[in-house]
């Protein structure tokens, strides 16, 4: 277990260093004077300009700047937003749980539904159910996230009035912040209306964000299931008279899960990218919307941090998936 972790960390570390280089280069690669680019329309007198150059350390040689940047990062200092003048890390701490909540809900929806539908399609191969599920999965995979969001808003929020259009919770509720995850916080508050409001706000964005992952998981589960069901040990299990449900759930599913797990890890990337679009559509106050708003405001320290955080999250999730392999499949565990 620890050997496996060490081996993974050895490959992850260079990538992490590379990502800090990318984030560091982001401001410095912009053509022209970075300060002027950042200020855009906002005029700046020469004195303030010089002060800002000094504050950001842009007068130092590049290696010094980079070393400075990384050592600040190591202390959790992500810089200061040019617009709000707040430390980026502080804003991030508020917004990150919102994105995690959204992505977790989307992933949960995608994996449970995707596994169920994929198994169903695999077991009833060639049937109408199979064709229906696979057809829907192909459409879901091809769906433009932002349009899907708009269509669902049009149908469920505008026409039927079932769900709210944007935000995380109705403004009438003031839930005390404990974890930052509104579902948990509103549950803890004991106010039933607040919890219901948080749920209703979450359901459409989670569905939109989870759709393409759902499609991929369903497809993968089906083909992985088909492959496993042909194995000798399945025939043995059936031949010795095991309950068919037990054969599918215990013998087949566990082995079919391995490729599915890989897909889930890879899908975190598309969830992070999809979050940018989903949060923009639903005005969901998370990292994605923050990133896009900051690009529009030329708030480069925030963009820098947003990119860094997204990449770090992606790397971390894939590391966890790598470790989970060993848990699901003992054969891989013994390889390490």
């Amino acid at each position, binding site marked *: 277990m620890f050997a496996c972790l060490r081996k993974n960390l050895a*490959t992850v570390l*260079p*990538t992490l260093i*590379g*990502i800090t*280089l*990318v984030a560091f280069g*982001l401001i410095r*690669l*912009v053509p022209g004077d970075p300060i002027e680019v950042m200020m855009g329309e906002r005029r700046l007198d020469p004195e303030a300009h010089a002060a800002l150059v000094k504050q950001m350390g842009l007068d130092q040689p590049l290696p010094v700047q980079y070393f400075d940047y990384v050592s600040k990062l190591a202390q959790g200092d992500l810089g200061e937003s040019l617009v709000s003048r707040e430390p980026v890390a502080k804003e991030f701490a508020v917004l990150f749980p919102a994105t995690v909540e959204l992505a977790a809900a989307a992933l949960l929806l995608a994996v449970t539904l995707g596994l169920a539908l994929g198994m169903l399609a695999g077991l009833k191969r060639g049937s109408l159910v199979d064709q229906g599920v696979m057809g829907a999965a*192909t*459409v879901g*995979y*091809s*769906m*433009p*996230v*932002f*349009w*899907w969001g*708009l*269509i669902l*808003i*049009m149908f469920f929020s*505008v026409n039927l009035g079932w769900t709210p259009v944007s935000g995380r919770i109705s403004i009438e509720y003031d839930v005390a912040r404990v974890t930052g995850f509104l579902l948990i916080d509103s549950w803890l508050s004991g106010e039933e209306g607040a919890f219901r409001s948080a749920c209703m706000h979450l359901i459409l964005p989670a569905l939109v964000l989870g759709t393409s992952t759902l499609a991929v998981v369903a497809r993968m589960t*089906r*083909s992985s299931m*088909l*492959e496993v069901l042909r194995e000798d040990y399945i025939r043995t299990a059936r031949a010795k008279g095991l309950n068919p449900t037990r054969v599918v759930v215990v013998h087949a599913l566990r082995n079919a899960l391995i490729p599915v797990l890989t897909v889930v890890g890879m899908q*975190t*990337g*598309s969830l*992070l*990218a*999809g979050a*940018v*679009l989903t949060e*923009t*559509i639903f005005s969901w106050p998370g990292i994605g919307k923050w*990133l*896009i708003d900051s*690009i*529009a405001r030329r708030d*480069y320290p925030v*963009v820098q941090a947003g*990119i860094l955080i*997204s*990449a770090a999250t*992606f*790397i971390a999730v894939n590391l966890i998936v790598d470790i989970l392999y060993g848990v699901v499949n003992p054969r891989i565990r013994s390889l390490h």
Partner: protein
Amino acid sequence: MMSTTAEVIPDYPSPAKEFWQGFTANRGAFAALIVFALIALASILSPLVAPYSPIEQFRDHMLTPPVWAEGGSWQFIFGTDELGRDILSRLLHGGRVSLGIGLASVLLSLLPGVLLGLLAAFYQHSISPIIMRVMDIMLALPGLLLAICVITVLGPGLINTVIAIAIGALPGYTRLTRAAALAETAKDYVTASRVAGAGVARLMFVTVLPNCMAPLIVNATLSFSSAILETAGLGFLGLGVQAPTPEWGTMLSAARDYIQRAPWVVTLPGLTILITVLSINLMGDGLRDALDPKLKKVG
């Protein structure tokens, strides 16, 4: 396929014929090919077939509903947008932009990607670690985020969208080419060619590369469809092609405010994106079935 066992001497079809038979055996892929060909043709011929200019504003006909809706007319078959522009004309011209960006970005990532992948496969100890580490870093930023990164540096626009999407797709091609080429270089025919005195360039491009084409073609199809989705996504976020150039995603971004009053402004561009991407993905499935018999057995 089923009848081959009955025949005594199989009449081997030409590779092209075999490919076509494999592809058309997948009826979904064949239908998708026809749909995509129609979309592509209509986009290419948009200056001839579009009823109006995509940027001409009919001030008296703002937000006219499409012909099948109440209040619609044959004058504007798909209706008009908030500035009175003909939606059908914008969709047709937008197809040129969206498909053009998709194609350009596929080429721009395919060519360097294949070259880097081959280099990594042939120089496993010197160049490969550097290339693959850089690719790992690029892969840590998922598709759209990497594109956003590039746009942040270069600024929005049509050419920059192509570059941003191409950079995002590059690691995929590099890794795929490297993996496929590594599998081939271990085979006897490559060793034979090497012993016969073939130079590295000849080994790379003449001996090995043709045998790596199948996964590359399938990947190119799939990255074409995701390039179209990403172009639209960037356009929607206001980071892609800028107004008034008609582009499917950019059209949707402006339409957001009219969900209630003019749903067709939202529905039609999105449906166009969905149908296009769907047809390309179905074609990709068919290509995979036809080109890679190993994958065919599953599913």
